[in-house]
């Protein structure tokens, strides 16, 4: 009897199924051991970092270097500054005008002043030397004249005196003319050479004065576009002013 009774329950209940709730699988899944995905994630993260680094090196540093080189070459070649400054777009009109004016001022004012100074110094030296020479000559002539006077005093006093005086005067006049002419000659000799030296000087000085600004501008401008965008995003995040011109594409 008891076995039949048990059998009845066994048959009915042994394979009885009840559908678990939908949350049961989620609960179970959270408790299940999973495969270790750490190595994969580490490798993926490493590759990503390497990629980003290479990208930054290639697009960021690499381009700026080449651009800097190109720019310095341009600066060396082009001492004509207005042309070199064409690339700077963000500069205001006044700045541009200043930059355009500066070289012309340097060509005219500074070199001329220097040139004049040099010329004056040289001329003064030469004039002084000539004067000294003429004084010596005059002294000699005067002495000679005195000797002539002593010799010909007895024969032709009046005539010889006039002649010697005339000679001395003519000599003096000639020498004075020479002294006056020589500085002019020196000028003519120096002038063709001076502008070349002056141009070189002005070029060097101008490059020394303007390159830092110019290079800075070029560096700021020639940053890769995505870096500029990142910078502007950072500015936006920080609440600083956003320069939308930086977001524009570079014109080649």
């Amino acid at each position, binding site marked *: 009897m008891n076995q*039949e009774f048990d059998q009845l329950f*066994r048959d009915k*209940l042994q394979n009885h199924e009840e559908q678990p709730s939908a949350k049961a699988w989620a609960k179970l899944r959270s408790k299940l051991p999973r495969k270790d995905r750490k190595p994969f994630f580490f490798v993926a993260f490493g590759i990503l970092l390497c990629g980003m680094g290479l990208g930054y090196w290639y697009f960021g540093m690499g381009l700026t270097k080449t651009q800097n080189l190109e720019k310095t070459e341009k600066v060396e070649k082009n001492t004509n500054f207005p042309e070199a400054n064409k690339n700077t777009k963000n500069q205001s009109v006044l700045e541009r005008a200043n930059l355009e004016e500066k070289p012309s001022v340097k060509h005219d004012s500074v070199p001329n002043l220097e040139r004049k100074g040099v010329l004056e110094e040289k001329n003064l030296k030469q004039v002084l030397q000539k004067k000294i020479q003429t004084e010596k000559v005059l002294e000699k002539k005067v002495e000679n004249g005195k000797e002539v006077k002593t010799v010909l005093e007895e024969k032709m006093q009046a005539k010889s005196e006039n002649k010697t005086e005339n000679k001395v005067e003519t000599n003096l006049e000639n020498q004075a003319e020479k002294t006056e002419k020589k500085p002019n000659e020196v000028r003519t000799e120096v002038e063709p050479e001076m502008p070349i030296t002056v141009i070189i000087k002005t070029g060097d000085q101008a490059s020394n004065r303007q390159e830092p600004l110019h290079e800075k501008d070029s560096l700021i401008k020639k940053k890769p576009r995505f870096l500029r965008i990142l910078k502007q995003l950072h500015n936006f995040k920080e609440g600083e002013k956003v320069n939308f011109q930086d977001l524009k594409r570079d014109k080649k």
Partner: protein
Amino acid sequence: MLQLSIEKHKRMFRLKRTYSNERDLIEACRDKNAKAQEALYEQFSPKMLGVCLRYLPDRNDAEDAMIAGMVKVFENLHRFEAKGSFEGWIRRICVNEALTLLRKKSKMLWDEVEKADKEKFETDTEANLEAEELLKLVQNLPAGYRTVFNLYAIEGYSHQEIAGALGITESTSKSQLNRARNFLKKMIAEQYQIKSYESGI
């Protein structure tokens, strides 16, 4: 709702088709394959919940026991040897989990006195009972009776095994079984009377 259940059945069918062979399924689960784990869960969880519900009348408790049992199954798959039935192995684990939870939840009372009831048992009355009705009857048993009855009558454990599992003597197991049977018989008779009264017989 209906659409969801249809989709679930479709998914189950797909999973079962991919892991038609039980060995492949076990191997994939050993490799911690998520799809295989889900397939195994879908295959055995309803049965195991049915088992747990016999020991734990509260559905949430039964589900917790089932989940704990399945977690142990996945964790100890490498220990399973292909000699016995895989379902039987899972069932044993789930039964143990249900018993563990039952011990935590309620104190089982054991009557040491063995009283064999000799009440007549009418076969006709319980033959018509459905599984759910029987389950309710079993769930209405006191915890001690219910556990021994489930283990002996349905799971097929011996009194020795039951005594070992529950930490009781064999005689206690026997007495609990007899008391459970008598209790059930009484309840079935009452239910039959109510049914016959309702039907006007």
